[in-house]
């Protein structure tokens, strides 16, 4: 029969509407309004429409999620001490070359210090590839989870300087607990190895 396809198609749409509401009814209506609901969205058994009303609801990002980098600093006696040693590897691996670093110099002797004087990232250029975080030997630069960077003036706001890039190590531990724990363990092992190597000599 001609035209049956259209009726069938409408039936399909109707079934999806039914699915969505039936699921809402079963799970207590507002299924994506809380963390558990949003997480349920990502399971293979989710049914019906599972869109999320951004920005009221947000999808949790995965731990590996990466967005423009930040610099990790340690709190030492109330001062921010960046982990960065200004070795320049991140700047060299950056595919878009959006990282600019100058090394700090000792004000008296003029010798280069192992800390950056300036550190800029042009986030207009950054393509969030994560190479800088991946190849940093000091775990000093990491990819952020904050993806809401819109601003009114890109010429003023979109070159991030050192002040803006620095975030505490505790923040890093918060957004990437597993990575942080893994790196801490690796560091501890490294230190233990070094100590073991040194002991026989002493």
């Amino acid at each position, binding site marked *: 029969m001609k035209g049956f396809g259209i009726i069938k198609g409408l039936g399909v749409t109707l079934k999806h509407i039914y699915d969505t509401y039936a699921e809402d009814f079963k799970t207590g209506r507002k299924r994506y309004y809380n963390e558990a609901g949003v997480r349920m969205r990502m399971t293979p058994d989710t049914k019906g429409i599972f869109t999320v009303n951004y920005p009221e609801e947000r999808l949790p*990002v995965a731990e590996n999620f990466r967005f423009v980098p930040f610099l990790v600093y340690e709190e030492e006696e109330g001062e921010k001490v960046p982990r960065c040693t200004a070795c320049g590897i991140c700047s060299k691996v950056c595919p878009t070359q959006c990282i600019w670093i100058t090394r700090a110099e000792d004000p008296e002797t003029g010798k280069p210090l192992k800390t950056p004087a300036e550190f800029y990232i042009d986030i207009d*250029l950054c393509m969030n590839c994560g190479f800088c975080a991946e190849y940093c030997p000091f775990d000093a630069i990491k990819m952020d989870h904050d993806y809401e960077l819109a601003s009114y003036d890109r010429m003023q706001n979109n070159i991030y300087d050192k002040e803006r890039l620095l975030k505490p190590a505790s923040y890093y531990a918060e957004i990437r607990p*597993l990575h942080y724990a893994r790196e801490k363990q690796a560091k501890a092992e490294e230190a233990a190895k070094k100590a073991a190597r040194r002991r026989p000599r002493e």
Partner: protein
Amino acid sequence: MNEEIKVLETYEQAVLERFPDWVRVDEREGYQGLLVESANLLPLMSDLRDELGYDLLTSLTGVDYLPEEKMEVVYHLFRSTGGAILEIKVQIPRSNPVVPSLVGLYPGAAFQEREAWDLLGIKFEGHPHLKRILMWEGFSGHPLRKDWQEVFYGDEKKPYEDRWPKGKTKKIEADNPYQENIAYPEGFNPETWIPEPAEFLFKGSIPLEQEEEFDTEKLVVNLGPQHPSTHGVFRMVATLDGETVVDLEPVMGYLHRNHEKIGEKNTFAMNMPYTDRLDYFCSMSNNFGYALAVEKLLGEKYHPPERAQYIRVIMAELTRVLNHFMAIGFFLNDLGAYFTPALYTIKERELILDIFEAVAGSRMMCNYFRFGGVVRDLPQGMEEHIREMAYERLPRQIDELDRYLVENEIVVSRGQGVGVLTPEQAIGLSAAGPVLRASGVPYDIRRADPYSIYDRFDFDVAVRYHGDVYDRFLIRFDEIRQSIRILQQAIDSIPQGEVLANKPAYKFKMPVGEAYGRVEGPKGELGFYVVSDGTDNPWRYHVRAPSFINLTGLRQMCLGEKVADLVAILGSIDIVLGEVDR
């Protein structure tokens, strides 16, 4: 029988024995293939095609060897029945780069030769309509030539010295002021320039023979560049006789960014995230192709460990499922079922993107593969999640879609018998992937020339025989089902272990040489041709983009069809403009 197998294994010798005077082995270090004089190219190719069965000219490109004052045209030939590569090269002087055109033998060379002319300035004698394809007429020079530089450029090669330790602190635009960053060819004035009329586009094409009942006037219609059906900025210029298409010319390049020139400035490692942006639906497959090509160059030491191989296959197959879901959904969009079926398929894609986000860190720009493996292991619980997807969700959803769509009378009546490409045409036009297989050619690189660990899995090569829009639609269902089979086997047998062959590195000791790595991408054969001169940056980096080359067949598919079917035909090829224009 035995003899035949021997010939297949030593194909280069076979060619050498056949034409001892015409060809010689390329003996440069790290190079393979055969060199031929440009005068002997046409007879050699015609013999290779007709006698030795090398009927698939998959890739054609040029290399500019500036220090030797030479240009080289590289042809990658395959048999459509399967088997290894045959690489033919022609060397020509750089001052007068002319080679005979292969369009008469392999119609699929048409766009690729135009691309080589556009970007490298190699003239193809006998090409019916050799004009720029990606650049516009007001572009000065041939950008992939080694002595060509953009008007403003930071440095010859990355990494740029002024980033570290100099610490340059200004926006790039400061050096690159608006309207001063363009150079025009001599005698070209953009103010007085008038684009040539659309009829000019058809100069090279042979008009369709038609019975003239009435003396009717032809009408030229532009579909695009801004048209909702073209999936981006893409233009089809159609000549109509009434409603019938009598000629059609695709016009592209609106999204061109010269991916290959950027690639040659980058180091080898830096190119990986750029490949994500070719076909932005399938970044995992793109990564795969590039990683394979460079691993070939790097040698055995960079052979990925077992677990990495499995992860690669799983990711590539998930990408194929994702891409075909999108292709099905957007094809229905093109047929007028506006966005309802597309959203049902996007739903499934969403769940796969969640996997990519958890694994690679980004939903679309995955940047997950490295030379010698993948960047990191699967997160905890991910294997179980993929298993659930592969065994429950995906098979269920594809069956559901099948029920809704495959026998839908609108899809059937719009698709059957429309936009037919016969097997001979498909092979000749260098079509690849679903377009080729829907025309009855069971050519799947995973089978024909297995790479990675695809020889271990049990799957069928999806093939359909009518070559019409409907078959190109159906074959995507078949391929999703086969991919799910591979996924199930892979996730069941994935071993534990390392995921990277070497320590993570951003610098490699690149040997001198060339390599062509290819994968069966969701849209067709995705090939990367890489030439290394031993430095950190590739000397030549060429992408054989399946979307781009599949468009060579668009005219053939559209001839004689009604104008309303153009949109359906284009939708059935499944192009992504990020890859077409590169």
